[in-house]
């Protein structure tokens, strides 16, 4: 039984699974809906990654070229899986381009969708051009243009970053912590301070969750070395006085109201479940969690085990996840999928 293993999604988790399978001489078919591989870090144009400080186009780009160069990985980009039938060891996947393939198992590395800030209208995104998202700032940095106000291209003198936009908010049905935004925001704040030393950067937070070692490299360093200012407050609204943006809120630690002008406001947007999860779940016959991510069993018996035998899941498809952990999960799930084949073959005999 050496049918290839199907991998759905060419982001960090999917690339890592393909890399791992090809390293041990197993064939895989990598299906990606976009016309190129790389997932969110490449498609959305991230700049320097956390915590490696390597540029996304080098780090994830390297994964892409290793996978593209491998004879054992059959990349089908610009395609989706529309039908998935059969049993562990002998599945048939039908693709949107009409092709079909025989595979022994499937790995769902279908990732997430960035939160759309338009769903928090009080914070000005979509109303004021200088209210942007963390993804847009990443793009400004990665494009080499540097950080600028979209309205007139000037370098901002004062930037506010609002945390938990689309996270930890019952009002919009998103109760989860998106895990990465605190660290990413601290990183962006330091990037801005480095590029524009005259620019003041403020971060408005409810809690700071730069978990693990990120506490030192991002939270503390941004405060101590880069003089990024942290204000505990969930602001009321972002408006404009005609020239500059105006943030209204309270500095809760000193119980004082604040209305502060800014040149630029950045939404630290969270990670939503992939908007296509409903159809993905239907095609592959897997259950979703209450929040809309792909459900999986506990990790103790095996990694990434979904409700359908032979179908596995890795990375941000499970819930908000870091790039490093998505990569680790991709590799772990490659092991789960590989281990399945001999078992399934034995069971079939």
């Amino acid at each position: 039984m050496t049918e290839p293993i199907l991998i759905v999604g060419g982001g960090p988790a999917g690339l890592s699974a393909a890399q791992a399978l090809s390293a041990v001489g197993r064939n895989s078919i990598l299906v990606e809906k976009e016309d190129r591989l790389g997932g969110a870090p490449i498609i959305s144009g991230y700049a320097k990654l956390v915590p490696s400080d390597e540029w996304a186009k080098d780090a994830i780009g390297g994964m892409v070229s290793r996978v593209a160069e491998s004879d054992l990985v059959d990349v089908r980009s610009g395609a989706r899986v529309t039908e998935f039938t059969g049993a562990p060891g002998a599945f048939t996947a039908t693709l949107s381009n009409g092709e079909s393939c025989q595979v022994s198992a499937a790995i769902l590395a279908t990732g997430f969708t960035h939160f759309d800030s338009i769903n928090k209208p009080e914070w000005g995104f979509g109303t004021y051009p200088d209210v942007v998202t963390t993804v847009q700032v990443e793009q400004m940095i990665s494009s080499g243009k540097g950080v600028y106000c979209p309205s007139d291209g000037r370098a901002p003198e004062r930037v506010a970053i609002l945390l938990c936009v689309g996270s930890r908010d019952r009002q919009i049905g998103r109760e989860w912590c998106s895990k990465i935004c605190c660290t990413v925001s601290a990183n962006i704040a330091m990037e801005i301070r480095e590029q524009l030393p005259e620019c003041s950067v403020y971060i408005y937070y409810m809690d700071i969750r730069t978990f693990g070692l990120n506490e030192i490299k991002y939270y503390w360093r941004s405060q101590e070395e880069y003089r990024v200012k942290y204000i505990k407050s969930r602001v009321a609204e972002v408006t404009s006085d005609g020239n500059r943006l105006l943030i209204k809120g309270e500095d809760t630690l000193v119980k004082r109201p604040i209305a502060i002008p800014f040149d630029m406001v950045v939404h630290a947007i969270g990670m939503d479940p992939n908007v296509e999860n409903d159809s993905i779940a239907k095609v592959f016959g897997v259950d979703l969690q209450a929040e809309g991510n792909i459900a999986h069993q506990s990790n103790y018996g095996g990694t990434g085990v979904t409700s359908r035998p032979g179908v596995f899941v890795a990375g941000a498809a499970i819930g908000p996840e870091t790039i490093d952990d998505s990569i680790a999960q991709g590799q772990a799930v490659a092991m789960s999928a590989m281990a399945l084949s001999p078992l399934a073959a034995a069971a079939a005999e």
Partner: protein
Amino acid sequence: MPIHEKSLIRPEDLTEHEALEIDGVDVSGHWSTFIETRVVSDYNERMEEEIAALPGGEYIHRCWQCSACTNVCTVNDLNPDFNPRYWIYLARMGFEKELLRDKDLLWQCVSCHKCTHACPREVVPEGVMKAMATWAELKGHTAVSPSASFDAEFTEQIVATGKIEEGRIIRGFFKRTGQPLRQAWLMEMSLRLAKHLPILMGIKMALAALFRPRTRNWGKSQAAIEEYLVERDAANKRALNLD
């Protein structure tokens, strides 16, 4: 340590000494201003539970102090001392004395519910404000507020007849709050109203005032509401350990 932000400290907690020497060091005058150490020894550890047990206060425990409520607050905009976020903190920690400094502000919430729609954890701060005001009133810290008197008059009429009659409410409200019935603005309003009122409506209003009609088959509803009010009142008192 030098004091940078004197404005944040209550004046009564600041002291200067004209002539004071500590361990041979002269610490007299303005440059050696002292802050009174704040010792909190009288927490009311049941305070959060008490407020949570009153209608509206149920979700006070969810608050994580982000200040979304204070930031959107209509009243806070006019008076920065009106700070629901801060009061929720005090109530949860049991700083009863500190909260009571603001007892005459608590009831000024206008129930616009902007906080209800901003709170990321659905604390329902508007309800908490209502519960806090009720708490202060039941504990005897504040007099019955004018709006509470109005509500009481309104409620009593509804319970009695299933209807309200505006003239009676005004009279009852004035009586409760010790105001004279002959007030210039009221006379003027009544006069103008009488002048322009359609005759038929005038007759209807007069009949309603004289005969106090009840909603048909009101008895059952009345009994149910009365039962609820008694239960609620008892539950409130139980929650606050009052008689």
